[in-house]
């Protein structure tokens, strides 16, 4: 269970997040939606230890992870898939997956996890030896997610998985997300600008606006809420 209490983050004097509290149980898909600059990525990055909060605390399964470095956050079972399909372009798909598990000492486990990722994404298995930079956008996104799954996460953080993908691939990305959730039984926090898609798959969702949490509710509730409709769904 992830518990975020009164989280506040600053970049220099600019406040990016203000007094955010949320509780993420051990199962479900959780969406964070909001406009550009609302603080969505900051929220994800502070959970992953890439941004150090100025106030508040983040607790994961009883461990205080607020001040931990990313490496130790990952060791505690949180994995981050960064935005913009960041893969290591000049090495192969296989090597990208190995790199994802570089903190893991158990090589046998790494091999098993690679097999697991290939089972989830047979497409990656086909392209195992190919350089990651030569994959299509959708495949790179799969690889980035697969790489995040290499460390046996108990919580997966996805930052804008649909960014820059063709519309038909966006559907695929969200289907994949549901599949990962179903097959691996891990909670997923997804940050998205594509609010409609995110809300339609989310069990519970949060709306961020200029660093503050303005609304929350089940995906369905938010989809039907007038405020969300006006601001984010363009209806």
């Amino acid at each position, binding site marked *: 269970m992830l518990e975020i209490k009164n989280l506040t983050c600053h970049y220099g004097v600019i406040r990016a997040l203000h007094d955010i509290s949320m509780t993420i149980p051990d199962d479900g898909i959780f969406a964070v939606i909001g406009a550009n600059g609302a603080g969505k990525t900051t929220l994800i990055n502070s959970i*992953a230890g890439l941004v150090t909060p100025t106030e508040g605390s983040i607790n994961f399964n009883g461990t205080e992870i607020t001040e931990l470095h990313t490496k130790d956050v990952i060791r505690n079972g949180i994995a981050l898939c*960064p935005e913009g399909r*960041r893969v*290591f372009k000049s090495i192969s798909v296989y*090597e990208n997956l*190995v790199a994802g598990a570089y903190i893991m000492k158990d090589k046998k486990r790494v091999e098993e996890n690679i097999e697991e990722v290939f089972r989830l994404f047979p497409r990656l298995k086909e*392209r195992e030896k190919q350089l990651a930079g*030569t994959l299509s956008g959708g495949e790179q996104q799969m690889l980035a997610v697969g790489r995040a799954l290499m460390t046996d996460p108990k919580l997966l953080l996805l930052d804008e998985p649909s960014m820059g993908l063709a519309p038909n691939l966006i559907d695929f990305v969200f289907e994949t997300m549901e599949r990962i959730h179903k097959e691996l039984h891990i909670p997923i926090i997804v940050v998205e600008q594509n609010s409609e898609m995110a809300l339609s798959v989310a069990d519970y969702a949060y709306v961020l606006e200029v660093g503050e949490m303005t609304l929350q509710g089940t995906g369905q509730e938010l989809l039907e809420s007038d405020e969300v409709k006006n601001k984010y769904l363009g209806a």
Partner: protein
Amino acid sequence: MSNKSLSLNGGGIMDKMTKHKDLIKVIIFLAFIAFCYFDSYFSIVGIRSCVNAMAVIGLVLISGYTRQIHLGQMAFVGLGAYTSAILMTKLGWNFWLTIPCAIIVAGLIGALLGIPTLRLRDGPYLALVTQIFGEVIYVLIINLEPLTGGTFGINGIPAPSVGSVSFANPSLLLLVTAAFTMLAFFVANKIAKSKYGRFFISIRESEAAAQSVGVNTMKYKIIAFTLSSAFAGLAGVFYAQCFGVINATEFRWSFSLELLSMAIIGGIASLEGGVLGAITLTVALEMLRPLGSAARMIAYGVLVILVLAFLPDGIISLIGKRWSEIKLMFSDRIKVFTDDRKKKRPKKAKVDA
């Protein structure tokens, strides 16, 4: 298919192939040194090539592997040169003892400069700071006259010796310099093949991805920069030996740019490329000397542009390729310049599995 390994360096067959290639590289290098050995003028050219090669090896680690643009490498060569020269002329130290000192001084100052600079986010900060740093070093050297000789520089730097054998003769000095260059290459190659090398590359490929898998990218950028400075310090020791005279103006930023262009022309993505660039350009610049310094720099500039245009991966990318492959590479590049509007060229056409 079955050739799976958890290292990022590929498997057994490849290892054998690269070993073979490694041997050829060493032979080519030794042939170059042997060629230079028999002529005292060429010995000096050879020493300069080796000095530049050592400095470029450092640059490849920070600018090639880690992709942080470093525009002040020559200042670190200067730090090494002055450290060695001052210790020898003022304190009468033995040449060999000044080598570790120069490496440590350059590396330490590199770390001190790198820690605050690389803490800043991505971007051109390192390039700006290193370039300015080079000028600061220049001004410092000019003004610390009692220590550095100010604008007059340091003269009469004694040659190294072992027992009664002095290496004052350029041919002998060349052999020592070449030996240290090979040592530097060997060490850098070990680093590049180690986990450090892989972390450096991960930063180049995507800093965000590297961070997301838990790599402390800031730490490894600082390590790469410190190592780069240390290699420059080593180069400096032999730079001071080359003519036995050093002067602050020789370490200003334009010479740092020269080093960076050597690395780029040779192929900044690999140590071999860097060394190749350092040697070919040092020799080429010597050959162009009769043209006068202005024409030389123009020729140099044109060469950089041509290589960037037609060989973006450097001269090293030509080596070991068949003529037909090279022709294909060039026609590909020419296409980029002629009809890039219509369609982007497919990146390195790969056969689908």
